[in-house]
C-alpha cells in the first residue's frame, strides 16, 4: 500500500505533526461538553483556522477534527447517524487547507477510542468495533485523508480493531497509545509491547507510538522503550504540553514553548521519527518545536536522568517498574490451584 508518510520521511528525516485540537478549539469558543466534530458542519472556518495555524507553524502532518467521530462517541450528541458525513467533512476541510500550503502537508484522519470496553470486559464485540471504525475511516477516506491516525488508545484489542478497519478501508495507518497509568496504558499495555499489537494483521502500521499521556518526561521515557524494543520501527511521540492547570475560568497547560522545543530535541535523540504535541500545544508551541527540529543535530539517546534534568521529573513510574512482575515476591500468588 502506498503511504505518504514513508515518502515524506525519506525526504525530511523527521516529521513534525500538529498540536492540540481540543485545547485550541476551546480558545475559539468551543464549550466544554460540546462535540468538536459538529463544528465540521457548523463552524468549518474555525477548523480551517486551526489547521492553517499549525501549517503556518510548520506542521508536516495535520490531523483531522474527527477524534470522537465513531458512532459510539457521536451518539452522545445525537449524531450517530452522521458518522460518514462528519468524518468526510473533517477530512475535506483539512485537505482544503493542506492543498494551499507552500510545502507538502499530509492529512491524517484522526481516529480516537470508542469509549466502550470490548468483550469480555464490556459489551462491544470485536467485530462491532471494527464496523464502527470502518464507518468512520470510510468517511475520512472519502474526504481525502491519506492515512488513518489511530490515537489515544488504551486497549490492544481496540487498536487492532481500528487497524483492521483501516486495512479494510484501504488506508495506511498509524496508531499511538496514551501511557498515562504507571508508565502503561490504563489497560496495562506497556510501550515496548505496542509494536506487536498489529503483528498478525496483513498490512503493517506505517508508524506506532505514544500520544497524550502525562507530559514530556513520561512520554520520552516511553519513547526509549519503544525504540529499544524495535529499532527499525517508525516511532511517533505526540505528547501533552505539560499538565492542565486552571487559571481563572480557563484551562492552561504548564508547558512553555522552550520546554516543548527541548522535548523535540530529546525526542529526536531518542529515535522518534514523527514528533508533535497533544493537549495544550498551541501554534506558538508548535512553531518553537519546528525551529528546534530544523536546528537540532541528532546525538546520543538521552538517559531517563538526562530527560528529567531537562524537561522535569516523571509524573508516574516507568513501565519497567509496573505490572505483575513488579509485585513483591510471592505476593498474591494463589496458594493452591483449584481444579
Amino acid at each position, binding site marked *: 500500500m502506498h503511504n505518504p508518510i514513508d515518502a515524506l520521511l525519506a525526504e525530511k528525516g523527521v516529521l513534525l505533526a500538529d498540536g492540540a485540537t481540543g485545547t485550541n478549539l476551546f480558545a475559539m469558543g468551543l464549550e466544554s461538553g460540546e462535540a468538536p466534530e459538529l463544528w465540521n458542519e457548523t463552524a468549518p472556518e474555525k477548523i480551517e483556522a486551526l489547521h492553517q495555524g499549525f501549517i503556518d507553524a510548520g506542521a508536516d502532518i495535520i490531523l483531522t477534527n474527527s477524534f470522537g467521530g465513531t458512532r459510539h462517541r457521536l451518539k452522545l450528541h445525537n449524531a450517530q447517524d452522521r458518522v460518514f458525513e462528519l468524518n468526510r467533512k473533517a477530512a475535506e476541510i483539512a485537505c482544503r487547507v493542506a492543498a494551499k500550503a507552500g510545502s507538502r502537508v499530509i492529512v491524517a484522519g484522526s481516529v480516537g477510542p470508542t469509549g466502550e470496553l470490548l468483550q469480555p470486559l464490556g459489551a462491544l464485540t470485536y467485530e462491532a468495533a471494527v464496523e464502527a471504525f470502518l464507518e468512520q475511516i470510510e468517511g475520512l477516506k472519502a474526504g481525502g485523508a491519506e492515512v488513518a491516525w489511530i490515537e489515544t488508545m488504551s486497549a490492544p484489542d481496540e487498536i487492532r480493531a481500528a487497524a483492521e478497519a483501516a486495512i479494510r478501508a484501504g488506508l495506511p495507518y498509524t496508531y499511538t497509545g496514551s501511557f498515562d497509568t504507571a508508565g502503561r496504558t490504563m489497560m496495562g499495555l506497556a510501550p515496548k509491547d505496542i509494536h506487536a499489537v498489529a503483528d498478525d494483521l496483513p498490512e503493517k502500521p506505517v508508524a506506532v507510538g505514544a500520544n497524550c499521556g502525562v507530559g514530556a518526561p513520561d512520554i520520552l521515557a516511553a519513547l526509549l522503550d519503544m525504540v529499544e524494543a524495535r529499532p527499525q520501527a517508525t516511532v511517533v511521540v505526540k505528547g501533552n504540553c505539560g499538565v492542565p492547570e486552571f487559571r481563572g475560568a480557563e484551562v492552561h497547560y504548564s508547558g512553555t514553548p522552550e520546554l516543548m522545543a527541548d522535548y523535540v530535541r530529546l525526542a529526536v535523540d531518542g529515535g522518534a521519527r514523527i514528533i508533535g504535541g497533544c493537549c495544550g500545544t498551541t501554534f506558538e508551541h508548535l512553531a518553537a518545536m519546528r525551529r528546534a527540529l530544523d536546528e537540532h543535530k541528532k546525538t546520543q539517546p538521552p538517559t531517563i536522568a538526562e530527560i528529567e534534568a531537562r524537561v522535569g521529573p516523571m509524573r508516574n513510574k516507568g513501565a519497567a517498574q509496573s505490572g505483575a512482575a513488579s509485585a513483591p515476591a510471592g505476593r498474591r500468588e494463589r*496458594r493452591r490451584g*483449584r481444579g
Partner: protein
Amino acid sequence: MSDDEIILSELPDDELVQQMQDDLYDGLKEEIEEGTRILLDRGWAPYRVLTEALVEGMRIVGEDFRDGILFVPEVLLSANAMKAGMSILRPLLVETGAPKQGKMVIGTVKGDIHDIGKNLVGMMMEGAGFEVIDLGINNPVENYLEAIEKHKPDIVGMSALLTTTMPYMKVVIDALKEKGIRDDLIVLVGGAPLNEEFGQAVGADAYCRDAAVAVETAKELMRRKHNVNAAV
C-alpha cells in the same frame, strides 16, 4: 481435576476468608458467590462477610491497582466478582440494618462518555461499604443537582477522561456554590487528564488518581466530616 483442588466448603473460616480474598484478586466470580453463601450458612452476619472477605479483598486489589501492579482489566474482573458477592449480601444487609459508610452520587460529566474509571470507583466504593447512586455518562449540571436533592448524598463524584470535558467539573461545583450546598458535600473528581492542582482549582475537595485512592479519600473525608459535626 487436580489433586490439590480446593473445596471451599471444607476450609475453616479463616482459610476460606483468605481464599476468598485471593479469588477476588483473581476475579473468580462463581467462587466468590460460593464463598459468600458458605460463610452466611455458617452463621456469619452479612456485614462481617462484607467487611472481612469482600472489602478486605478489594482493598488489596485497590492497593495493587494504585501501585501499578494491576491495571483496569484485572480490576474490572475483581470488581465484577465483588459485585456478585454483593448482590447476595445487599438484601441481607438492608434487613439486618448493617452500618453504612455513607452515600455517594457519581457520574461522568457532560460531553464525556467514558465510564470505565467511574464504574471502577463506584464498584470499589460499594465494595468499601458505601451506598452508590450512579448517574451514568454525559451528565449536565441539572442531573447532579436533581440527584443531590433526591438522594441527599454525603459525596459527589465526577469523572472526565477528555481534556475537552474536564472543565465542566467547575461548572457543576460553581452551581453547587450558587445553591449554597457546596459545603454540605464532599466533592471528589477524577480522570486521566486531571491532577491535584486541577482538582483544587475547580473547587473539589480532592482529586483521586484512581479508584483505590478514591475510597481512601472518601473514608478519610467522611471521618473528618463526622468529627466536625461531633464538635459542633
